[in-house]
């Protein structure tokens, strides 16, 4: 009996372990080994941290790196600001069919591929696009306007892509808040602001934090949206990694960048958890 249980446990664990080792651990070890390889001459390598040094000595890399981090934080915060009232409405105000319909509406855009979704924004925002034509038709502007290829367009795309990943954890945590607790908050003299601040937000904190972590990671690692919607100025760090690997064939530097990005995202998540007094167990469990 015990032996059978053990066998079942091992069988269940195997796919997870395979997935972790084959797809996460081994590639990362290999990546790390590549990243600490210095090319001194053709086909001769030495071990060292020169690739990491390159990153810190080249302003473009450093600036792009910081920019990507800041923009991702900004995208996360804006997603939260937009998603919170939406989630509150879905979880607490809408009832019955309206509730499920609204939730489904948040999900619908994810039935088409990210590429098509992003392309949708291009159709809307480009010089000959719908918005531009509409503005001309109404008479607000004289000539065609280009709304693509800038930070705003990219930000819109990032928020749009991330929305669902914020709404889902928020709706889940807000739904678990008893309506009568909110009513008690009003009954004892609170107004909308104080009830939100003292009751709704503290209750929703685990959902907020886990939503923010996911959205931040997705934004930081996003490649498609910054490439398609962003302009020359809005270079994303993933684009640098891509160009090192694919365009320059400089795998060593690309791998080093990859590790720096991993370190950066872990660091920012850690700071955010510390600031909100949450732990990873609390938000994920």
């Amino acid at each position, binding site marked *: 009996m015990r032996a059978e249980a053990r066998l079942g446990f091992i069988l269940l664990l195997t796919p997870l372990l395979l997935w972790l080792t084959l797809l996460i651990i081994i590639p990362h070890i290999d990546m790390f080994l590549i990243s600490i390889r210095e090319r001194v001459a053709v086909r001769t390598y030495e071990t060292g941290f020169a690739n990491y040094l390159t990153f810190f000595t080249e302003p473009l890399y450093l600036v792009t790196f910081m920019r990507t981090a800041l923009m991702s934080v900004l995208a996360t915060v804006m997603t939260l600001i937009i998603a919170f009232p939406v989630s509150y409405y879905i979880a607490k105000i809408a009832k019955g069919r309206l509730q499920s319909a609204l939730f489904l509406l948040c999900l619908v855009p994810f039935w088409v591929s990210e590429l098509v979704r992003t392309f949708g924004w291009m159709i809307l925002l480009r010089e000959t696009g719908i918005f531009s034509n509409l503005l001309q038709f109404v008479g607000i502007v004289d000539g065609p306007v280009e709304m693509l290829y800038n930070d705003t367009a990219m930000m819109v795309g990032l928020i749009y892509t991330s929305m669902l990943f914020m709404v889902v954890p928020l709706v889940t945590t807000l739904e678990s808040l008893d309506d009568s*607790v909110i009513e*008690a908050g009003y009954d004892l*003299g609170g107004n909308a602001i104080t009830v939100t601040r003292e009751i709704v937000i503290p209750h929703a904190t685990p959902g907020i934090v886990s939503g923010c972590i996911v959205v931040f990671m997705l934004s930081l690692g996003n490649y498609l949206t910054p490439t398609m919607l962003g302009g020359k100025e809005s270079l994303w760090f993933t684009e640098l990694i891509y160009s090192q690997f694919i365009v320059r064939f400089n795998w060593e530097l690309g791998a080093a960048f990859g590790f720096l990005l991993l370190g950066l995202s872990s660091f920012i998540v850690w700071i955010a958890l510390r600031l909100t007094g949450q732990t990873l167990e609390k938000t994920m469990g």
Partner: protein
Amino acid sequence: MTPDLECVKLTKTFDTIKAVDDVSFQVPAGSFFSILGPSGCGKTTIMRMVAGFLDPTSGDIQIKGKSVLDIAPNKRPVNMVFQHLALFPMMNIGDNIGYGLRRAGASKAEIATKVGEVLERIGLPGIAERKVDQLSGGQKQRIAIARCMVLEPDVLLLDEPLGALDLKLREHMKIELKSLQSAFDTTFVYITHDQSEALVMSDQVAVMNEGRFEQLGTARELYYDPKTPFVAGFVGDSNRWSGTVDASSGNEVRIKTVSGVSLTGSAQGRPLAKGDRAQVFVRPEAIRVALKADGISAFENRIVGTVSSLLFNGANSRVLVRDDASGGEIDVALPQSGEFASLTKGAPLHIGWNAGQATCFAGGTE
């Protein structure tokens, strides 16, 4: 003196259902008022209208003589203890109780002293730092009341606050609530579907059914002088027969039941003429039991039967007596004088009761 709370022709309709239908009542200052009714009769709906979470379809709500219909829930001088208490789990006990004071803009020092005082008063001093989930059910209960009472509301609304507690604790909290009420000297409006809660604690009880008040009175009045069949059946236990009126003379009516038994009861002023359909209610505890026929010879109603089952429950023991003539079962309270200690199933038994103990109402089916 103006009553603390007055509802005038209060009505609330949801889509098609009338949840509350033309309800009027007054609650005098400092009294304990209960609304008693079965599940779904509209009790919570009344409470939520008084607290301000629902707008009445029509009618008026006045607190200390002033209409509060235009006042938002957070500005009304009433507070509510919710069915499941609704303590704030994200705050400790002190912050829970201090929440309302913070909203009212009290200073930190003032909040601390008031919270300390009220904790003292409810018999739980020094637990301000504890978390909500570190308390027992009964303690949470008291905290929920204290959280409202620090705000010194004109009226405290309690929506089945004992519903979640186990039986033993409920018995204990009944007494506790009553003493808290006199300690704080505040008007309590209490709703429940448990009649013993309502009867034990209240100065006045309103019995509610399907959105309407059936009867409003003291516990005694409801028990001894029910005005409607619903009240007679809902407050306390009752045996019920239905039939037609055979003869009526003044207050006394003879009723022939469907099963063929002839019973004498009192109409208490209700018009019951020969041939009318009628129903009779008799409380198990109003029935006298005797082993011999002469033990009950003084009563107008006498039935000879056999014990069909004995329901032993200490002081509240009952016997079910099967009527030999009609075959119907009658619920009878068993006196604890020792005389019937050896009663067994199948034993013959004589039961009887006075016409005054049998309340008759018009109407009733089958």
